[in-house]
């Protein structure tokens, strides 16, 4: 068991003028741990995710990340270049809309290969072989490698986006509603795939979702947000089976039974 967390977040807040994005959020994330952040639209979960992934700078608070050399670095004190490097190599970001995370006009293989080149890989044959391997891991047929993602279905695009993110062997992946907008059968396949990859690779992940079933399936820990604040947190099954906060009880009782 690793002794230190991967990410330490302390009193993180983001204000948009006088409006609250997220307020005083603190938590530790450990290697191999999947944390779900749930709440309705406008609860601040996406603001939090964007602050953590440094796509947005917080108004106050700190987040330190344990680099591969074991040293903690304060994310908001890094230079822009350092943050971009982290984003390209050690982190992944899976967007709800694959078009935001893919380059739609280059081939599927190039979408995966590009991330490899960003970390210094130059050997064409090796890059292509790795791309083929990753496409098969996300269940995309090998004969689609030269097609552009524009020609892919929504579910395939999302799987391609996942391959593009995971090919560099990141240690931390941010996911924003990774199954949003997909049919349920496609969702199930994607969830199963994500669950397997996260376990096999020992990834840590922060998954923002409004779907409690997705949170139950993917995460061990959960934070419930409302109006920018964390109203409840704990083990995922504890929060869902014994919700304590009024808002969590409302969320859980609103799930439709099939």
């Amino acid at each position: 068991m690793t002794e230190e967390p991967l990410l330490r977040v302390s009193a993180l807040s983001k204000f948009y003028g006088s409006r609250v994005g997220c307020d005083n959020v603190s938590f530790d994330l450990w290697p191999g741990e999947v944390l779900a952040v749930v709440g309705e639209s406008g609860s601040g979960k996406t603001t939090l995710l964007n602050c953590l992934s440094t796509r947005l700078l917080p108004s106050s608070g700190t987040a330190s990340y344990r680099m591969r050399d074991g040293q903690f670095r304060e994310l908001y004190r890094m230079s822009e270049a350092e943050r971009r490097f982290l984003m390209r190599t050690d982190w992944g970001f899976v967007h709800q809309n694959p078009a935001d995370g893919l380059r739609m006009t280059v081939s599927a293989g190039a979408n995966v290969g590009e991330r490899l080149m960003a970390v210094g890989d130059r050997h064409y044959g090796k890059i292509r072989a790795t791309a083929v391997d990753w496409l098969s891991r996300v269940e995309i047929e090998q004969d689609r490698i030269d097609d552009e993602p524009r020609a892919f279905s929504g579910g395939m695009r999302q799987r391609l986006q996942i391959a593009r993110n995971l090919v560099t062997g990141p240690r931390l992946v941010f996911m924003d509603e990774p199954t949003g907008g997909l049919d349920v059968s496609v969702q199930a396949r994607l969830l199963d795939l994500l669950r397997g990859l996260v376990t096999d690779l020992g990834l840590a992940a922060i998954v923002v979702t409004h779907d409690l079933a997705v949170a139950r399936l993917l995460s061990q820990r959960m934070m419930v947000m409302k109006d920018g604040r964390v109203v409840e947190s704990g083990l995922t099954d504890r929060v869902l089976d014994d919700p304590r906060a009024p808002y969590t009880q409302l969320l859980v009782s609103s799930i439709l039974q099939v």
Partner: protein
Amino acid sequence: MPTPLVVSDVAKSFTMHLRDGIKLPVVSGVSFSIKAGECTVLGGPSGAGKSSILKMLYGNYAVDEGQIIVTHEDGLIDLAHASPRTVLAIRRQTIGYVSQFLRTVPRVSALDVVAEPLVERGEERETARGKARTLLAQLNLPEKLWMLPPATFSGGEQQRVNIARGFITEHPILLLDEPTASLDATNRDVVIELIAAKKTAGVALLGIFHDHDVREAVADRIIDVTAFAPGKLAA
């Protein structure tokens, strides 16, 4: 051998915020311990709080008051106040749980559902699958079902998958929530044998069994949960 689990003065209530914050007390003053090599049974009518106690001991329900001291990796830990990460470690290494119903995951085969807790403890996948096969065969689950996801199985079939999943590891503590509820006589007997084997191996078992015959066959001690009814202490 140390006592693997001691429960002292545990209380639990539910506050229903959607119903004007009405408070439903479940149990209070819950105190008992379980011993290695014994099967302790929680007795009492439905609604007395048996399942709630079991769920608190697994960290699935929050604890309002009291302590749950678990012997975990040569130390003592209060599960009632442990961090989520510690609770997960306790579940992986120390406390196993057979729930009443199987929670299935899309596209994962019955065999892998059963093997998973062993893999999480660091066992090779193929070795774990081998053990899973042995258990599923022992529980008379037809071999043609092993590679299928259990979502479409019957109640009894799902329960056998669940039992195999709970019994495959060597957790020193095993919690059983009505593991025989939807089983036929033959498979009930298999479960009784499995429990006997766990006792011999020195596992501390704590269970709920509504089936009278099973309870007679496995119980070393019965704890009457009505003694922990909230009114008794508050009065």
